[in-house]
């Protein structure tokens, strides 16, 4: 399913800021996210076992497989419809906290997605981030997926403002997410199931921030070289 490998060398052609982010590109993003989560399913579940209830990898893998298959069947043409189909499928199939949270991310991103270029994608991702914060009533530093999504969106905005091409900007976003993910290790969880451990949650990497980093890495891989 790795779409990036289907476009070898395409990144060479990506020199403008006005990269196109069309339905096919967003579908490739979701497919790559699904592939990463499937590959890392047991690792995600193991992180969750340490401070949660050992189901994050299994649940997200099940939901993303359903989302990929929904995109295969429906093949929505317009970009916003792709994100909305993913949102609906995740909300319908995942359950737990990650279903509503990732579902809300894609739903808000879908509503906010304007004309398909890098800037529009950044606006959509920021809207998704805000949706997650509202649904989960979480703030930065609570040891949640927000701690990866926040730095990712900041890095994306900053790179695009500096007129860097979309693939570079998305790579910066993925690096921002990874830094944010790593920073969750010493945090004491204030939201989600890990919060019940209090001080004992410190010293463990947050599973939600880990999967959120995969979401941004998937964007960097799948959307690079488009346009």
């Amino acid at each position: 399913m790795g779409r990036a490998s289907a476009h070898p060398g395409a990144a060479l052609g990506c020199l403008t800021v006005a990269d196109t982010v069309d339905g096919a590109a967003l579908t490739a993003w979701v497919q790559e996210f699904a592939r990463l989560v499937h590959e890392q399913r047991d690792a995600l579940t193991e992180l969750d076992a340490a401070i949660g209830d050992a189901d994050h990898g299994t649940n997200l893998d099940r939901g993303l497989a359903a989302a990929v298959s929904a995109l295969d069947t429906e093949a929505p043409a317009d970009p916003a419809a792709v994100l909305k189909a993913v949102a609906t499928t995740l909300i319908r199939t995942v359950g737990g906290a990650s279903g509503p949270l990732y579902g809300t991310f894609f739903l808000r991103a879908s509503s906010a997605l304007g004309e398909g270029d890098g800037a529009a994608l950044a606006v959509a991702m920021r809207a998704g981030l805000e949706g997650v914060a509202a649904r989960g009533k979480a703030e930065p530093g609570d040891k949640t997926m927000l701690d990866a999504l926040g730095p990712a969106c900041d890095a994306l905005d900053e790179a695009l403002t500096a007129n860097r091409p979309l693939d570079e900007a998305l790579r910066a976003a993925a690096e921002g997410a990874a830094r944010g993910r790593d920073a969750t290790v010493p945090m004491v969880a204030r939201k989600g199931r890990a919060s019940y451990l209090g001080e004992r949650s410190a010293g463990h990497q947050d599973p939600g921030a880990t999967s959120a980093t995969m979401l941004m890495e998937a964007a960097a891989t799948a959307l690079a070289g488009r346009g």
Partner: protein
Amino acid sequence: MKKLINDPANVVAEALRGIAAAHPELRVDHAQRVVFRDDAPVRGKVGLVSGGGSGHEPMHAGFVGPGMLDAACAGEVFTSPVPDQVVAATRGVDGGAGVLHVVKNYTGDVMNFEMAAELMAAESGTEVVAVVTDDDVAVQDSLYTAGRRGVGVTILVEKIAGAAAEQGLPLTGVAEVARRVNGNGRSMGVALTSCTVPAAGRPTFDLPEDQMEIGIGIHGEPGRRRVPLAPAREIAEMLVEPVLADLDFTGGDGVIAFVNGMGGTPLLELYLMYAEVAAILEKAGIGIARNLVGSYMTSLEMAGCSVTLLKADDELLRLWDAPVRTPALRWGA
């Protein structure tokens, strides 16, 4: 992993087939994974819907029937149900008097029930009120955290609010009773072993023979602290003390004392624990008006127990004593 299963992916669906086969008085929607009492919706009665992850049996499907829940949604193991399931359950129990959602305070449960209530509000005239249970004193409550977990008191809420609905109270009245039970109930749990989520294949955490986890929830998540194993008398104190410290249980009409097994602890030990709890309460001058001892809210095969105390009044005791006819609780009917 040694379990009586066929395929880890099908555990919930196959268990629901068994529930349907064992209980013809229940109706199971296998597509949505919702268990209904057979005569739902009951015209003119407030409908009660609860649900949550599977792995806590008999909660919640075991509490569906006259005098308790009208429907229960079964999520994946330890994973809350999705909004579609809650919507299907809510529609199916709406007898025209509104529907009460009984939701345990866990992030996933709260969000999925909230989304379902939003969907219901957008599409129909059904009035939905949610009561969120949060009785676990192991969790420090604050504005900045997810708050306390909903554990043992949930079953007392379902029984007592279920009786209130059966007796014809309107939605506001049933919700008020449910909130009063939650507000007057406190719990604390201990785990002697971990448990194995079928899809994960191995225990959620390692717990050495001589250690126990104090302050656990119901999902095999580790507790607040790990301490050396102790005699039951001391464990009972570790559980009851923080409960009594959190709420004044003296006065009133006594308490409903609930000693709950986590799934892997024999009834022999639960009764032994009940004796210890009763002795502590007697010393504290707290009368036990009613009790419940058994494995009603489990965490798969985890060994351990929880203690829930509910400060009762006349009305709550009357509703507790009212007839109930469900697979797991049955009296007076």
